[in-house]
């Protein structure tokens, strides 16, 4: 990605970009042709819908279409703001993503560091295989697993509580606990995947550093604290920057499969994606859904640009583009 804008095109004096491109095209037209399917693909599915953000400023009706529906300015946004929806879903999306990033990376790094300590290769392979397994299943199945565990009547949690003589808990009507359920589920599903990058980074470290530390009498904790963790810093920072850029993007599959249309849980579990989906599919409020989508796209874009700009100032090597 970093190479995307790096200017490796040598521009000599008196040679305009246009003539340079013309020369390149006449030489490499076949390579260009090989990119055409991808170019058309992104044109159709990404670029053509972009002007559709205009939908956020009209009172949409299906018959007139996007550009003939009456223009109402910021009315859609005003309504979302006054109803409190905008604030609620923004807060939830941001807080969940911050929790996912911070806790997720902590667990992933812990797993990678501990995996490196294992000396039984069999145990390492087996545990890695098992921890990677949740990455391969759909979120529909994840939703079923959570139901298996938390369902009031048949859930494993309540079976355990009942057998201990305790009162079973009504999980599906209690919004407070879902913060933890969702974050834990996210960690459960993504730790195996995320720790692979960190583990690969540790594997790439020079073993001589560890040998030298051992000769100097460093304890296991010191080895991790002063060698492994500092060496993981670049990986962590790059992944963090990636994640920060997407901090306004929610994981629809996760939230919708766990919560679905359970309105009692919305105060703590409604995120931008689920709100947009509901507004559109359930209540057919296309303009309102588009307004939220536009707001998300704009602020997400500004966020990526700002993060990247700051990183470029501090440490250019880490910049995304």
């Amino acid at each position, binding site marked *: 990605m970093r190479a995307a804008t790096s200017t490796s095109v040598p521009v000599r004096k008196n040679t305009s970009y246009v003539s340079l491109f013309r020369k390149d*095209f006449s030489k490499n037209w076949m390579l260009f042709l090989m990119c055409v399917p991808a170019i058309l693909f992104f044109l159709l599915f990404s670029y053509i819908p972009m002007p559709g953000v205009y939908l956020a400023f009209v009172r949409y009706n299906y018959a007139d279409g996007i550009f003939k529906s009456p223009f109402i300015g910021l009315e859609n946004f005003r309504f979302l703001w006054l109803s409190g929806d905008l604030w609620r879903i923004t807060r939830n999306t941001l807080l969940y993503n911050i929790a996912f990033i911070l806790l997720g990376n902590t667990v992933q790094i812990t797993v990678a560091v501990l995996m490196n300590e294992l000396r039984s290769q069999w145990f390492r392979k087996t545990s890695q295989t098992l921890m990677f397994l949740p990455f391969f299943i759909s979120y*529909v199945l994840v939703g079923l*697993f959570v139901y298996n565990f938390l369902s009031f009547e048949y859930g494993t949690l309540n079976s355990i509580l009942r057998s201990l003589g305790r009162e079973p808990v009504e999980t599906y009507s209690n919004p407070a606990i879902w913060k933890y359920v969702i974050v834990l589920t996210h960690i459960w599903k993504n730790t195996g995947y995320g720790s692979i990058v960190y583990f690969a980074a540790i594997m790439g470290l020079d073993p001589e550093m560890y040998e030298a530390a051992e000769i100097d009498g460093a304890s296991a904790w010191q080895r991790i604290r002063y060698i492994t963790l500092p060496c993981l810093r670049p990986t962590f920072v790059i992944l963090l920057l990636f994640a920060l850029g997407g901090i306004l993007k929610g994981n629809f599959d996760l939230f919708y499969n766990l919560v679905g249309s359970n309105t009692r849980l919305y105060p703590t579990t409604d995120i931008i994606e689920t709100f947009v989906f509901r507004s559109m599919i359930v209540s057919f409020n296309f303009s309102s859904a588009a307004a939220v989508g536009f707001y998300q796209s704009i602020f997400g874009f500004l966020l990526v640009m700002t993060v990247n700009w700051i990183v470029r100032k501090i440490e250019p090597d880490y910049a995304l583009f």
Partner: protein
Amino acid sequence: MAIRKRGTRIRIDTSTAVLNGFSYIFLGFFALACLLPFLLMIAGSFTDEKAIIKYGFRLWPPEFSTFAYELVFQNPDLVIGSYRVTILITLGGTAVGLFLIAMCGYALQRPDFMMRNHIAFYIYFTTLFSGGLVPFYLLMVKFLKLKDNYLAVVLPALMSPWLIILMRNFMKSIPHSITESAKIDGANDFHIFIRLILPLSVPALATVGLFLALGYWNEWYLSLLFLSPNMKYRPLQLFLYNLITRADFIRNSAASSNIPPQDIPMESMKMATAVVATGPVVLFYPFVQRYFIRGIVIGAVKG
């Protein structure tokens, strides 16, 4: 992943031993926590419905029964139809998507192709800004008229910026001299790609292809958006989703079996269908795991 040679160790100090023990315990529990839900699901699918109602989901079925599976397969048309749809979507989407991604990835890493960086940015920009769900939905439904069409699930997932960049990074490791010498011999770019580059990129194709295939197999979002519940054959994940969330759907799918509605084993049937839908992925997974690991490492570190 290669293990680091530590050489011969004479003595292990206490802190290392403690950390070692802690690693085994922590990772052991974590791995178990990842496996447990699968075991609960399998046990649930083999448990008699009355036992589930009485005891809840257990790790070992208190009363063993295969009734749920019998019901799922008594009306095999629905399950097999879903399977067929999912397999066709997965195979078709993966084959087409993989070819297009490979073609684009190859062109984008050719150092003598000046437009490569501009095209790469054109692709990358779509991850920075998007029109959002509603314009995309209207495009699909109103202009492409893909409602209730399986193409609505296949087409938008054919490519992704991440997979194209992954492919490009993979292909960078193929020496450019191969292309150059073939060009001197008079081969054109497409020929070079088909005859020389593709055979050399088998690991890359396997990795990207598996990512695509897994995506299609687990695809649920596009099906939910564009395929309506009155379609007879739905992709497996949507089929499973409807079964989990809608009681009437279970009753309908067991309707032909002449069982009174109150006797339909709702809970164990959910589990049995989940096992049937996930089985292939879980069985296949240990053999292809390494391709995914390589893809994740190359995609993340070099990206």
